[in-house]
């Protein structure tokens, strides 16, 4: 497996051997996957209605049981009460844990991600020894208090203050936090507050004891569109005393802690959208195979088949992207551990390295889960709109995934922003390839017909061309606006769109190719079809956003030249047939009566 740095996928050609796919779970991981599915089928799915009726206690109970099962500390080393498995295993537990309701998905994500990771990534040995065993066992739950009424996306602008007491033993916290997941039952809070006029906030660990609230009060449960049994409350601090030894890392490091913990949260959120989408597809196809109109099952209609195929394809792409990035992260952690780095430093460096991929996956997966649940409702027709079927809650629950862990706008901006930062720091050379693309626009295109006889070879070549399209657009954007680029968000968003499609399309293609290699073209027929269909959609997206960007950044001859370049970069030699591809995929899903990839 070649190692590829974060963001490098845009300038390097990858082979299927370079990525990990979920079909390669080892026996242990397969057993873990089965265990989580059994757990959800037993403890969560039968009680859907109670979750929808805001049974917060049930969420807490499920979390408690998840602790007993060892699901809460999969990647935390054994010495801190965890299971000590790699990040891929964490992702797979997150994937299947979050499938039945967003309420459990959110409680689980908030606890194991942003609730636990700040301590694991930044805690002192003492802090880790004290808190991690409580968190991994589910004896106590975690919450993460960053957002405030006046500080959402602009998370470093919080007004909550931390003031050193006269005796120098405590920090006194005052302020108000909002939208705090798990607040209703958490006892270990990561609280971000500002000391004096510091530029950056500072993070603290606050232990909350209901009997002795120490100036902490909770607001009422928020009345929300979805995730009805996920506790979300305001948290007020009034002269709350936190011992100085509970500061996380150093003064002024809070924003960094917040952001790095979010990297983990983001990729895990991608996984959390995955089995939720698989389950919806299965529910939808079960219904479509039974529901008859015009004397036939609605699954027989092309309009419905189109939905099955698109839903499956996008879900397949999340699967591909999530586990590919997860393994890249795990490999880097393992490499750093082998080099003698501490677990903490290794994880921190790895999540930072792949922050772009984490953001890409968060955006793509959350939007897919929204799309899938929306189409799920449509397949159920009127019944989809009813609370009696699982589509309605799935759709409402999916909605939040586009907002928390950084809104999708913020994450889109970050993908491009972080890439440029890496380029500026010299960590990754996008300038040279971007210039090459720029120069090639003036050259005469090759008229040779390439040999695409090998399976998916044209698709792989196409992805390389999309990378050129991205480099052309992003390169020109930087060249035109330089440091002012931040003020041209719509342009950045267009570039981000192309970047996201590239990563996901490439992941799906390489995954399909790897499956072909371990089975056969015949057996992997649907995976091939999904990879092709996904790429077709990606090319369409890249072409339209590319055009939008070019029309904004270039004029006259240059504009014409770039548009021609874009056309060249988005042109197939042999066009795929999306309708035929969708039929292949839909037929399989219908025959199996479930999402079966």
């Amino acid at each position, binding site marked *: 497996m070649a190692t590829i740095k974060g963001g490098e996928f845009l300038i390097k050609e990858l082979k299927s051997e370079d990525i990990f796919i979920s079909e390669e779970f080892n*026996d*242990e991981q*397969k*057993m*873990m996957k*089965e*265990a989580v599915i*059994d*757990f959800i089928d*037993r403890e969560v799915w039968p009680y859907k209605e109670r979750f929808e009726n805001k049974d917060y206690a049930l969420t807490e109970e499920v979390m408690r049981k998840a602790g*007993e*099962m*060892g*699901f809460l500390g*999969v990647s935390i080393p054994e010495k801190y009460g965890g*299971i*000590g*498995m790699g990040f891929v295993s964490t992702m797979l*537990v997150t994937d299947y844990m979050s499938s039945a309701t967003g309420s459990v998905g959110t409680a689980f994500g908030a606890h194991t991600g942003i609730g636990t990771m700040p301590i694991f990534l930044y805690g002192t040995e003492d802090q880790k020894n004290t808190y991690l065993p409580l968190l991994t066992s589910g004896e106590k739950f975690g919450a993460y208090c960053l957002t405030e009424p006046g500080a959402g996306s602009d998370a470093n602008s919080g007004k909550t203050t931390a003031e050193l007491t006269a005796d120098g033993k405590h920090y006194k916290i005052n302020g108000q936090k909002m939208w705090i997941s798990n607040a209703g039952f958490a006892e270990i809070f990561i609280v971000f507050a500002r000391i004096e006029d510091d530029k950056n906030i500072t993070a603290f660990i606050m232990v909350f004891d209901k009997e002795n609230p120490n100036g902490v009060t909770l607001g009422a449960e928020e009345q929300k569109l979805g995730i009805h049994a996920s506790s979300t409350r305001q948290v007020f601090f009034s002269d709350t005393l936190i011992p100085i030894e509970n500061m996380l890392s150093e003064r002024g490091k809070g924003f960094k802690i917040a952001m790095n913990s979010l990297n983990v949260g983001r990729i895990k959120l991608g996984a959390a959208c995955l089995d939720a989408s698989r389950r919806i597809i299965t529910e939808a196809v079960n219904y479509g195979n039974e529901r008859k109109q015009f004397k036939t099952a609605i699954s027989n209609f092309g309009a419905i088949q189109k939905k099955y195929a698109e839903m499956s394809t996008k879900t397949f792409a999340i699967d591909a992207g999530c586990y590919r990035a997860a393994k890249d992260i795990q490999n880097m952690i393992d490499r750093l551990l082998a080099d003698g780095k501490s677990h903490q430093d290794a994880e921190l460096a790895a999540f930072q390295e792949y922050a772009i991929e984490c953001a890409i996956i968060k955006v793509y997966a959350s939007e897919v889960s929204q799309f899938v649940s929306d189409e799920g409702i449509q397949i159920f027709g009127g019944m989809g709109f009813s609370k009696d079927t699982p589509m309605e809650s799935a759709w409402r629950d999916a909605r939040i995934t586009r907002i928390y862990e950084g809104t999708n706008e913020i994450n889109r901006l970050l993908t491009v922003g972080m890439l440029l930062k890496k380029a500026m720091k010299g960590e990754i050379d996008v300038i040279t390839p971007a210039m090459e693309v720029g120069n090639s626009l003036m050259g005469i295109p090759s008229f040779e017909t390439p040999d695409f006889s090998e399976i998916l070879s044209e698709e792989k070549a196409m992805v390389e061309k999309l990378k050129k399209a991205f480099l052309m657009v992003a390169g020109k954007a930087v060249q035109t606006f330089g440091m002012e680029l931040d003020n041209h968000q719509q342009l950045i968003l267009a570039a981000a769109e192309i970047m996201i499609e590239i990563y996901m399309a490439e992941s799906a293609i390489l995954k399909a190719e790897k499956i072909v290699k371990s089975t056969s073209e015949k057996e992997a027929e649907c995976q091939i079809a999904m990879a092709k269909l996904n790429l077709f959609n990606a090319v369409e997206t890249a072409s339209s956003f590319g055009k939008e960007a070019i029309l904004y950044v270039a004029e006259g001859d240059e504009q014409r030249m770039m548009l021609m370049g874009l056309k060249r970069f988005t042109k197939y030699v042999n066009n795929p047939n999306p309708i035929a591809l969708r039929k292949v995929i839909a037929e399989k899903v219908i025959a199996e009566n479930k999402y079966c990839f």
Partner: protein
Amino acid sequence: MKILVCISHVPDTTSKINFKENDTKFDNNGVQFVINPYDEFALTRAMWFKEKQGATITAVTVGNTSTEPTLRKALAIGADDAIRVNTEAIDGLQVAKELAEVVKNGSYNLVLAGKESIDYNGGMVPGMLAALVDYNFVNACIGLEIEGEKATISREIDGGKEILSANLPLVIAGQKGLVEEKDLRIPNMRGIMMARKKPLSILEPISTKTATTTASFEKPATKSACKIVSTENIGELVDLLHNEAKVI
């Protein structure tokens, strides 16, 4: 108490069943395998004895390497060690003979098995095994208590329940009731991790001779569509039963 739990590795009930090689072999392509559900009740009851009364549990299966994940799952659930007799399970007598060898060498007090496996539903192994090792045997148990050398066993009988007592060593063929479905265990993460480190020994079979060979498999005829006849139309129903279904 030394307990041996016989585990068979069977296709999940939702699997699509296909045959290959001219309908003489089961096609396990794409099939998900699980612990035979009846055996899982047995294993869960064994865990109860282990935790409440103290016992060691050995899980055994007769099968090739592909059955190992199933044994690992038994270990993850809580069995202490596992044995795989390295040969494909073909027929009841062959399997019973292999298991008998294991029982003799391990001097188990209690052998727990499911009353049948849900793949071929032979239902013969526990009885034959008991006969081969000269242990007491009770079939289709729905309850089992052990005190010292004495076992109290309940069985379902037509319209009621029968309570038996028997002495160890004993072979029990169990079913639901031994424990309830809600008692079945999902292996936890630590169990899964530990399963890796627990001993799984592989024994060579004493013989590969089988008493029977499969001539062919046949799937049940596909069900035809259901026809609904209105209650006012008894004549049509009679006509359909007579002329179409040809049953009257």
